[in-house]
């Protein structure tokens, strides 16, 4: 083989190594028997995996993260589905601008969003941390919801709504009877994407934490600053497998990658 024909396979291997490598290291480290987070792991045990479930703050922050991911994503969909519908069905003046603005948070760094929320919403209006987190996560997920739902709406012919109306349905009824069932896959995909995005979100949540109110990733960072044992690695592995499981099921049953 020439150097030229080796180039592509080697690049590919390197890319895979960089993508998967850290993940494999973390997974290996979670099964360590040693006292500190280290690689290669010292021995094999399940003690750190077991410990994850005993840390009180992990349980609380996991609950918080789960609440934000489910609640925030649901709220984003409740706002995002009608918004997407309006954007795709009505040729409103400035629809493109609205689309861009709605998508903006995907581009704007989370740090800035978090800081802005803290400085201009939370502090001046005395908004509770939980509510602030909820609003922040809703706002974060909204662009993803609009994008994914819009994509599936654009694939759906709008004349079926008129057909439903002519068969006796109201406009709103037509939306629920023939639009929603046909974009169900898109909505589920948006939900999963939103859930994962919200769950893994750090920068915004970093600014919005208070006594006893933290998201899981932020809590993990805080934990690591004090205790440097492999339980954080164990928790990371568990979360990673959870995400992979969700995406796998989604792809299997919804053809998730069509919408994202």
């Amino acid at each position, binding site marked *: 083989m020439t150097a030229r024909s080796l180039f592509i396979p080697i690049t590919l291997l390197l890319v895979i190594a960089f993508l998967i490598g850290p993940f494999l290291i973390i997974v290996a480290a979670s099964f360590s028997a040693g006292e500190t987070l280290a690689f290669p792991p010292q021995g094999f045990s399940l003690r750190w995996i077991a410990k994850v479930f005993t840390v009180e703050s992990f349980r609380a922050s996991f609950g918080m993260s789960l609440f934000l991911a489910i609640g925030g994503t649901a709220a984003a969909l409740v706002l995002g589905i009608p918004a997407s519908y309006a954007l795709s069905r009505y040729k409103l003046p400035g629809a493109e601008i609205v689309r861009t603005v709605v998508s903006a948070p995907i581009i704007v760094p989370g740090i800035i969003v978090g800081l802005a929320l803290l400085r201009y919403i939370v502090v001046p209006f005395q908004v509770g941390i939980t509510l602030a987190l909820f609003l922040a996560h809703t706002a974060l997920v909204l662009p993803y919801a609009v994008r994914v739902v819009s994509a599936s709406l654009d694939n759906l*012919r709008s*004349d079926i709504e008129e057909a439903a109306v002519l068969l006796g*349905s109201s406009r709103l009824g037509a939306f629920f009877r023939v639009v929603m069932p046909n974009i169900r896959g898109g909505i589920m995909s948006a939900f999963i994407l939103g859930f994962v995005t919200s769950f893994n979100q750090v920068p915004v949540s970093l600014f919005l934490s208070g006594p006893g109110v933290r998201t899981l990733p932020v809590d993990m960072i805080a934990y690591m600053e004090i205790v440097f044992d492999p339980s954080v690695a164990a928790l990371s592995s568990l979360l990673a497998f959870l995400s992979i499981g969700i995406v796998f099921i989604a792809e299997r049953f919804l053809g998730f990658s069509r919408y994202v």
Partner: protein
Amino acid sequence: MSDASYLSLEKLTLAYGDSVAVANLDLNIRKGELIALLGPSGCGKTTTMRAIAGLLPVKSGHVRLDGADITRVPANKRAVGLMFQSYALFPHLSVYENVGFGLKLKGMRGTELDTKVKSGLKSVGLSDFANRKPAELSGGQQQRVALARSMVMEPKVLLLDEPLSNLDARLRLEMRTELQRVQKETGVTMIFVTHDQAEALALADRIVVMKSGKIEQIGSPEDIYNRPTSSFVADFVGFENIFPLENGKMKTSAGLIDLSGHLSSGAPSAAGLAWRPRMVTLGTGPFQGTVRGTSFAGDSREYLLDSAFGPIKAEVEASRPTHALGDALVFDLPAEKAAPLSRFV
């Protein structure tokens, strides 16, 4: 309501924003009639249908159906069916559920619903396809589902927007017959839009020819085909030799040609005269021409002549002796065959 106006459009004006698409349209349709709406692209056919269905608000004028003014009645309460060119079947529902959709909304349930849906499917020959999804059907089958879905609702009027344009030639003919059969069996009043004059001639009781948002002519297929009243309709139905008249003289590129004595009695008041290529006589007649082009069309042969009238298109039986390019010929535009046009545009 008189019999002649089961569905009537009165001074109907329709617009998209400020641009008027249909202006002051008057049309009366009898119960059970099969009307074809014929016209070039952009003349307002779809716009008119959407207004009848209630999908497009009326700017001014009235729509009356079965004695009631339905101008402001919402689309879902009109008992007007519309078959879309794209069929617009619900992709998530089976054929059976598609057909039952409207009936269910009417509150029909149980065996009554089942009987109705099944007889609807049977009438279009799709009983065996009840459990398929629309995506698993051919174009022609999807079309039948759409037809059954509309027909089970027993609409007062069924509108069809270019129902056959997505089908290939053979299926088109088959569906054409099918539509005709369903219409005759149920006696539903039907309006269908088409670009295709052959389709309109074959199917319709009356043809409405539209042009730029106005009605150009209404008449039976024979009227439209043989007696077009304007140069536009004449051109649309295949009169290819169309000339304006001025005081009984024909205006041509070579000036005015006197046709007195050559015109049938009613014609001198006409604004124009039109002949189909088949009506032109070659080999005898008072006019001179030169063969500029010729083409073979199976049963017949077409000639393009240069003459004092300008170009003349003639079609003669293929068995007749042929003429070569450049041949000088005499020809006639027989007066008794000419279609007198009252409007020349």
